[in-house]
C-alpha cells in the first residue's frame, strides 16, 4: 500500500484560486462560442458570479461543462430552485423581479479547483396554466447526485425535470399536494384526518 499522502497546511492562498471576473468572462465567451443564443446572461459582479442558460438545451450545456478539457466541472455541489414571487400586494411594487422560477446549479471542478454558478430561468407555470409545473431538462445522467437533488427540487419547488429516471417525491410523502417552497403555497388544513394549524 502506498504511503499516506500528507500535505501541509502552508500554501493557503495558492491552493485556492477563486473565481476572478476574468475567468468567468472566459467561460462565458467559450460557452457563447459553442452554444450561441442558448447562453442568455452573465453577472460577473455578483458575490458568486453566475451564467444564465436557456432551458431548451441545458443538458447539452451541462455535458459540455463537465467534459470540456478547459472546464471539467466534474462535481455538482448544489442544485436548488428559487421562486421569485411576492404574494403581498403592498410589497409587490418594490419586489424588483418578474415572477419566475430559477434553478440554480453550483458546480465545482476538482481538476481546475474552481467554482461556477449556472442559472436556468423558468416560468412559474407551464403555458401560464396554474398547477402545471414547468419543464427543465434533467442532468441526472451527467452528475449522479442530480438524481436526488432534482427529486427534492421537484418535491419542494415544483419543477418537472424531463428525462429524469424516477421523478417522485423524496422528502414529502407520495400523496402530498402542492410544492411547499412555492411562495403562493397554501398550507393544508387537514391531512388524513390530522388537523393543521
Amino acid at each position, binding site marked *: *500500500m*502506498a*504511503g*499516506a*499522502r*500528507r*500535505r*501541509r*497546511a502552508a500554501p*493557503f*492562498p495558492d*491552493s*485556492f484560486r*477563486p473565481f476572478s471576473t476574468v475567468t468567468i468572462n472566459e467561460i462565458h465567451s467559450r460557452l457563447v462560442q459553442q452554444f450561441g443564443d442558448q447562453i442568455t446572461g452573465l453577472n460577473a459582479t*455578483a*458575490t*458568486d458570479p453566475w451564467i444564465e442558460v436557456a432551458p431548451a438545451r441545458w443538458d447539452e450545456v451541462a455535458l459540455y461543462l463537465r467534459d470540456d478539457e478547459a472546464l471539467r466541472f*466534474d*462535481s*455538482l*455541489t*448544489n442544485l*436548488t430552485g*428559487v*421562486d*421569485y414571487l411576492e404574494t403581498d400586494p403592498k410589497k409587490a411594487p*418594490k*419586489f*424588483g*423581479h418578474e415572477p419566475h422560477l430559477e434553478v*440554480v446549479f*453550483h458546480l465545482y471542478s*476538482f481538476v481546475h*479547483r474552481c467554482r461556477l*454558478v449556472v442559472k436556468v430561468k423558468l416560468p412559474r407555470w407551464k403555458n401560464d396554466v396554474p398547477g402545471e409545473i414547468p419543464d427543465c431538462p434533467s442532468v441526472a445522467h451527467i*452528475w*449522479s*447526485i442530480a*438524481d*436526488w437533488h432534482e427529486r*427534492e427540487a421537484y418535491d*419542494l419547488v415544483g419543477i418537472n425535470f424531463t428525462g429524469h429516471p424516477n421523478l417522485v*417525491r*423524496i*422528502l*414529502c*410523502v407520495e400523496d402530498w399536494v402542492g410544492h*411547499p*417552497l412555492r411562495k403562493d403555497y397554501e398550507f393544508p388544513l387537514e391531512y388524513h384526518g390530522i388537523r393543521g394549524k
Partner: protein
Amino acid sequence: MSTTLQDPRVIEFDVRTDEMLVNMGPQHPSTHGVLRLLLRTDGEVVHETTPHIGYLHRSAEKIGENLAGPQWIPYTDRMDYLAAMNMNLGMALTFEKLLKIEVPEKAMTLRLIIAELNRVASHLVGMGAYGLDLGSFSPFLYAFREREIILDLFEEACGARLTYSYLTIGGATHDLPGMITIPPGLASLTGRSPNLKLQWSDAVLLFLEWLEKRIVEYHTLLTRNSIFIKRTAGIGVMPREMAISYNCTGPVLRGSGVDFDLRRDGEPIYTRMYQGYEFNVPVAPFEDAPREAILGDNWCRFYVRMREVAESIGLVRQGLAKYPTAQGAYRVPYKMNTKLPRDEAYLETECPRGQMGFYIVGNDQAEPLRARAKSSCFCNLSVTGPLCEGVLIADIPSIVGSLDIVMGEIDR
C-alpha cells in the same frame, strides 16, 4: 464488493431462494435515526437497495424564508444535531459572505476552537455508533463518556448541551468562559478534586491530554480488532469517480483517496480562519492499513475519521495558545433588522460529516428570499443504492454506518 454465487462466502449455493422485499428501518437501530431501506434480497444477497427518507422533514428551509438570519440559527442546530456548532458556523459565514462582514481575529480563533472541539465530539459518536452497528458495544460507552466532557465544556461556554446556537452572525454570542469548576466527569477521570477551579482553556487542555491517550485504546478496540477489520475491510468499496459524481464529501471522499478538505481548499472567507495553523488532511490509502483494506472501503472511511480526531486536537491546542493574544472582539454586532442586499451567496464549510452548504438569496429585506441548506449526508446517503448492490444483508449496516449519516441533516 459484489458477491456472486461462486463466492465461497455464500454457503447455500445450491439452495434455490425466492426474491424477497425486506424493510430495514425506519426503526432499525443501525440506521442512525429514521432511515428506511427497502432491500430486494435473494437469500442473503441484496440485489437492490432503495433508501426512503423524509421521516424527519421539518421544513427548515421554508421556516428560514420567514425569519431573519439570527432567528434561523436555532433551526440549523437541529440539522446535524451532533455537530450543531459546525452548522451554526456554516450558516453564519454564509450571511457574512453575503453582507461582506469582516470578523475579528479573536472571533475567528474562538470559532476554530469551538468548531474543532465539536468535530472531536461528533467523530467520537460516529466511531462509537459504528462499533455498535457491527456488534461491538464497549467503544460506544467509552465514546459517550468522552463526549460528555466536551458537552460539559460547551455547557460552560454557552449554556446548552446539544443545540447551542452559540456561533452567530458576526462571531459568537458570548466570549469563552474564564474560571469554571472542573466538569465532574473530567474530575473523576483525571483524579482531580471535584471542587477544583480552573480556567476553561486549562480544562480543555486537561481533557485533550487525557483524550489523546485514549485514542490509542480505541485503535486497539476497533481499528486493529481482527473482527472489525473482517467486517469493514474490502466491503463497500467506492471508487474515486463514483465519490465525485455523487458529490460525496468529507471523510467519505477522503476515504476514496481524494485529497480535498475545505479547511485548506475552500473559499477565503472560511480558510482565513485556519490560516497560520498546522494540520494534516488524512487521506486514504494509509501506510498502516491492514492488508485486507482496499482504497475506498469502509475501513478507510472509518480510519480517516479517527485520524481527523487527532488533527482536530492539535488545532484546538494551537487555537487555545493563540486566543489570549488574538486581536479584536469576540463578535461584531449584527442587527436583527439588517436588510440583506439583492444578491446571493453560497458557501460550503467542512463539517464533520462532509461539506455542508448554505445558499442565501437576499432581496432588500431582513428575511431571505430563499434559505437553502445543502446537506452533506443527503449526498453521502444517495450513494447507498449503487454501493450496496450484491452485498450480503449483514454488510448493509456496515456500509451505511461507514457513511456516518445523521437523519436530521438529511431531512432538514
